């Protein structure tokens, strides 16, 4: 257990430089956009005095390192700055939008893992129709763009069958049932492609593991096929499955931006897209940083789970 704890700690420390690099990248991204952000923010009729005032309000007249330092010090104190347009604190904007994005992506990931892994395990050992069917689903789900799938689902389930609300959002605390009803379509849309990736990865990893000699020895020990597949093979195949799930979570976050806009969910993705169209750079910067941190945290978690399941991982890191 001790080795595992220290593995988790080491892995945690490794994220610090990643976080710093990410913050610098996000910071520069906004600064390096061609054109003067303040000018495009204020529009063509802005006077030079106006521009100068706003520049100094935003701290843009300081040298870059100082700007970065001021910004990051605020971030570390939980202050992401102020929305330039609504004058709200960005942290309070995120307080509303982040839970929505988390609900959407976590539910989509749970659905994708909850379907992809068991189905992948089940079809790994099969040939016939089960394999063809799942293969067809994988190809279809990977090739269909999720915004198109979302539109089709909306058409089918809302206009034709009249089962679900097409778009909008109610907070969970206000009305949990309504909240879930609003979430179903975006979650399914977002999860479909992920399910396919996870199913494919699971199937391939299981196929590889099931032909290993130690599986033959497990059979020779008279274990039931259920525990050979479900305990031993799955645990050995979990490395690639977890890694792919972690990486796909990044893809999922990107997809969430599209889906939130498609279904009018006021999440971080919607916040970022709106801010971009309003040239609201401070908000864009904070939103992107939030999403990036989310991705880093998810990858940290998946790596730690991977290390817990496979003792060779923790030793590879300590070596």
């Amino acid at each position, binding site marked *: 257990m001790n080795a595992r704890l220290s593995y988790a700690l080491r892995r945690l420390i490794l994220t610090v430089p990643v976080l710093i690099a990410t913050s610098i990248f996000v910071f520069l991204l906004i600064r390096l956009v061609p054109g003067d952000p303040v000018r495009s923010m204020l529009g063509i009729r802005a006077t030079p005095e106006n521009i100068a005032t706003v520049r100094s309000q935003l701290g843009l007249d300081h040298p870059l390192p100082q700007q970065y330092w001021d910004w990051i010090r605020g971030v570390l104190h939980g202050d992401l700055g102020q929305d330039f347009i609504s004058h709200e604190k960005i942290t309070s904007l995120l307080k509303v939008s982040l839970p929505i994005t988390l609900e959407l992506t976590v539910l989509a990931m749970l659905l994708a893992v909850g379907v992809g892994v068991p189905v992948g395990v089940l079809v790994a050992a099969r040939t016939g129709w089960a394999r063809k069917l799942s293969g067809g689903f994988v190809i279809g789900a990977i090739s269909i763009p999720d915004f198109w799938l979302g539109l089709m689902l909306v058409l089918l389930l809302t206009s034709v069958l009249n089962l679900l609300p097409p778009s909008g959002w109610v907070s969970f605390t206000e009305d949990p049932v309504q909240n879930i009803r609003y979430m179903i379509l975006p979650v399914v849309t977002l999860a479909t492609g992920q399910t396919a990736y996870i199913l494919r990865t699971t199937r391939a990893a299981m196929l590889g593991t099931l032909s290993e*000699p*130690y599986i033959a*020895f497990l*059979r020779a*020990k*008279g274990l039931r096929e259920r525990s050979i597949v479900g305990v*031993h093979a799955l*645990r050995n195949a979990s490395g690639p499955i977890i890694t792919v799930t972690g990486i796909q979570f990044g893809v999922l976050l990107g997809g969430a931006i599209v889906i939130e806009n498609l279904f009018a969910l006021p999440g971080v993705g919607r916040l970022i897209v709106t801010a971009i169209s309003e040239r609201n750079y401070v908000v864009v910067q904070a939103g992107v940083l939030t999403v990036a941190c989310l991705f880093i945290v998810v990858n940290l978690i998946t790596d730690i789970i991977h290390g817990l399941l496979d003792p*060779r991982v923790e030793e590879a890191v300590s070596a």
Partner: protein
Amino acid sequence: MSALVEFRDVGVDYARRGGIVSAVQNVSLTLEENETFGLVGESGCGKTTLSMALMGLLPASARVTGQLMFRGEDLFAMSESEHRRLRGDEVSMVFQDPATSLDATFGIGYQVAETVRAHRQVSRRESKARALELLREVGIPAAESRYSDPPHRLSGGMRQRVVMAAALANDPSLLLADEPTTALDVTIQAQVLDLLAALQRKHGTTILLIAHDLGVVAQICDRVGVMYAGQLVEVAPVGELFAAPRHPYTRALLDALPSRGRRGRALRVIGGQVPDLSHPPAGCRFADRCPHRMDVCATVPPLATSGAERQIACWLDPATRATAGLAPLPDSPTPNPAVPVGDPS
């Protein structure tokens, strides 16, 4: 002695793209309770196929013929779930390479204990206690503290001991050991063989030891069977086989042993090649390499019983000829001294 296992004219074919591979043909053999039987033969002669048939673990492409009796029941007629209940309990197996036999993601103790749990209604605590006892018995030092170690923290020899502990967990009456020492260092090999012999004596387990060299077999076996290209060609008690081999292939094998007091002389090499088992020769499969080949060798020589403990399948041998109703050859060789075989290139 009574029979534990009886191969009755067992054959195994593998279906493959472009035809079938005849991996085992006409094998008849009895394994007695409490004996250590060695099975030798070159790579690809069907040793693993035979043991997998016993385990019920042949791949789906395999087709079996004949009967394989275990305690009077035909294993080939058994359902998969009946066979599973036998595996790891009454019939167990140790594989060749301990580096790949164990699951790297579980502790060694767990992998022994789960064999117990697969066959006995016991609590986790009881199966752990039993696993610890087994690990100690096979000589894992400090078994308690190593119980949760993953396999890669152990040396090859230690891993093979763990594999043996797992295989012996339910005190099987038959243990198949498929080249259990081939992947180990020479010094470790001897230790593992000694352990196998000691466990055999203590528990009275019948052991089928597969090896591709006679040296290993000579150390711990009571009887030996020699296979060539899927056919069982000779069976004899170890001493008799070394003293008076009767099949030309057996003689060639013995000649190739470095330890037979011919220091300074070049080793004899068996000329020619093992036949392609997807197109095996119709009769004796050793015919291409045999210096005594005759016309009759184009039909399969029956595996004949000779005396209480020997079997032989060669048209040179009076026993085989008698089984087929042929008279002994006039110059019927008492097949010593060893005849040089083939062309040593």
